[in-house]
């Protein structure tokens, strides 16, 4: 069974607007969550993370929100820029062991 799911395979937004990428998980033992960004022919690049003891973490234009009761996290990008166009993966881990990834969301930011 898929323990981490990204239900939207793609998302298109206008430059300058907000991008919201969503992720759901089923394993309540996950205690740390991460977002990665991936360009074609490159490995995933770490973007932002959040511990399960927090509900929000912000880094510049990127904010991650965690709703533990709903087992849901989201990544907000404000304002969106064309260079943000990539595939975004959410991932979860328990005590720093292996990462369990979602299937990815392709974000397209239109100029």
């Amino acid at each position, binding site marked *: 069974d898929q323990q981490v799911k990204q239900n939207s395979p793609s998302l298109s937004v206008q430059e300058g607007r907000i991008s919201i990428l969503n992720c759901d998980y089923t394993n309540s033992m996950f205690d740390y969550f991460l977002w990665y960004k991936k360009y074609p022919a490159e490995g995933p690049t770490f973007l932002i993370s959040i*511990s399960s003891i927090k509900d929000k973490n912000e880094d510049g234009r990127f904010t991650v929100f965690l709703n533990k009761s709903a087992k849901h996290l989201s990544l907000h990008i404000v304002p969106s820029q064309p260079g943000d166009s990539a595939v975004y993966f959410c991932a979860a881990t328990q005590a*720093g062991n*292996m*990462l369990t990834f979602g*299937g990815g969301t392709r974000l397209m930011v239109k100029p």
Partner: protein
Amino acid sequence: GAGVSQSPRYKVAKRGQDVALRCDPISGHVSLFWYQQALGQGPEFLTYFQNEAQLDKSGLPSDRFFAERPEGSVSTLKIQRTQQEDSAVYLCASSTEGVPTYEQYFGPGTRLTVT
């Protein structure tokens, strides 16, 4: 500083051949992970090393897959008697001891195509 490097970047193998994929982690990183990424999917865990010890190999899909990290730095993922379903991108990641963050840093991957 230098990131995680992997070689070769691309590998074409005929079905039945053996392949060896190399990963050079970030210097000083204790933990090393291998993942397999099929087209259009997220990476899936294969195996995990802490220094030279292989602590988890639960994700290896068959006994044709073997990984080692003999000196606690460079790692090699070997696939014997390759089959078409082994075609994927193989990603290596490294990280420091976890607390309080668990970020893993990925290499560019090796794209394996089995014909």
